[in-house]
């Protein structure tokens, strides 16, 4: 059986672990509909007989609450923001992702290290440093990249929960109003994702289409992978 393969320097005790499951990542900016699609994918996978484990960005037991608290104040610098993301991801990696992959589950990741690479890079962290920091992450079997332009994202976010401080990247553009800041920030994030999509062969999915069609497209990509 093949073993879990990493982007780079994983700790020695994590190497050589058998990979019985599949790691599927759903990436995309705020407001693109990622979480809805993850829920639907999960139901569909379970109905077709696959055991699924879901893991979501900043939901770790170790620092999930620390991140929420830090984001509500003004104590984070780009560096500590990045490192907290890495703590959160590492905790979920070892407590959720690796055990599930070893046991033959399909792991559905709602966001992955690419979110950190995009967000932290637009905040001025060095690309090379970031890539090395997150190099302990396993390489996913499939990265589905839901894509929507920034103005369309803004309309969706406004119709659901409203634009918040971090989604608008207000820490980067304090002088702009919330809408302009959102569009400026999310456009930069999109540039990052688009570049990674090329370099790392994500599977781009056009999220302008109706939700059912998008879901169909995601399912056929997943089905293809599971047939392999």
């Amino acid at each position, binding site marked *: 059986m093949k073993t879990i393969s990493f982007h*780079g*320097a*994983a*700790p*020695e*005790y*994590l190497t050589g672990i058998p990979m019985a499951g599949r790691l599927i990542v759903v990436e995309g900016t705020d407001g693109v509909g990622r979480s809805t699609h993850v829920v639907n994918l999960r139901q569909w996978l379970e109905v077709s007989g696959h055991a699924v484990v879901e893991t979501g960005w900043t939901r770790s*037991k*170790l*620092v999930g*609450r*620390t991140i929420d608290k*830090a984001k509500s104040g003004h*104590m984070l*610098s780009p*560096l*500590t923001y990045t*490192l*907290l993301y*890495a*703590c959160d991801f*590492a*905790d979920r*990696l*070892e*407590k959720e992702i690796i055990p599930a992959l070893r046991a033959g589950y399909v792991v559905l990741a709602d966001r992955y290290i690419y979110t950190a690479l995009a967000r932290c890079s637009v905040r001025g962290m*060095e690309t090379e*440093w970031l890539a*090395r*920091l997150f*190099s*302990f992450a396993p390489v996913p079997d499939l990265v589905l990249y839901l894509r929507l332009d920034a103005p369309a994202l803004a309309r969706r976010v406004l119709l659901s929960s409203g634009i918040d401080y971090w989604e608008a990247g207000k820490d980067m553009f304090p002088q702009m109003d919330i809408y302009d800041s959102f569009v400026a920030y999310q456009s930069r994030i999109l540039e990052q994702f688009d570049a990674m999509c090329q370099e790392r062969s994500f599977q781009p999915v056009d999220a302008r289409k109706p939700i059912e069609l998008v879901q169909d497209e995601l399912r056929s990509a997943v089905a293809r992978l599971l047939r392999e």
Partner: protein
Amino acid sequence: MTRLKEPHPHSGLLIVVEGIDGSGKTTQAHLLKSWLESRGEAVFFTEWNSSELVKKATRAGKKSATLTPLTFSLMHATDFADRHLYQIVPPLKAGMIVIADRYAYTAFARDEARGVHPEWVRNMYSFATRPDVALYFRVTTDVALERLSSARAKIKYYEAGMDMRLSTDIAESFRIFQSRVVGHYDALCNEYGLTTIDATRTIPEQQAIVRDIVLARLRERRRGGAA
């Protein structure tokens, strides 16, 4: 980022004390601080694992023994990054003397002893300011163990490396794990030019050496024309 290898541009002075638990480095740091203050210097003291940002989360992780070598490493780096931002760089820019009880070298030695990739940890800490004076208080694990057992009731779980399952006996585990840490520290002395101090000598003897080293550095700084 290669700041850890290049001299910093600030007018202050960064002094780092390193060594395993029970080496007596904290005692030496406090004596140094009192002496510097008595000479009229403005001194800022910062210690490992003390930032408000992650202190609670780290403590909870340690208490429940759920930290892995990787998360242990990352949590300490986050703590350090936060202190570097608020407690180390500003006083250095203000021309103060900063004494750091443990520094990035602690992470290099300990995390490598836990199987974390050495290049990976070094990359992570490459934002750290290079110390002007870095002192490594070297003791054998037997001496450290004896000091710890006479000073307090219990050796801590992660300090003994109990997470590594090296032995079920805490003293034995401490001996095996900290010996590895000492091995890594010794290598770091060459790699980063730490000054080794024989920490089996008496407290006053060690302090006299420390003060000589710091004094030489202060004179050099004054000659250099800095504040």
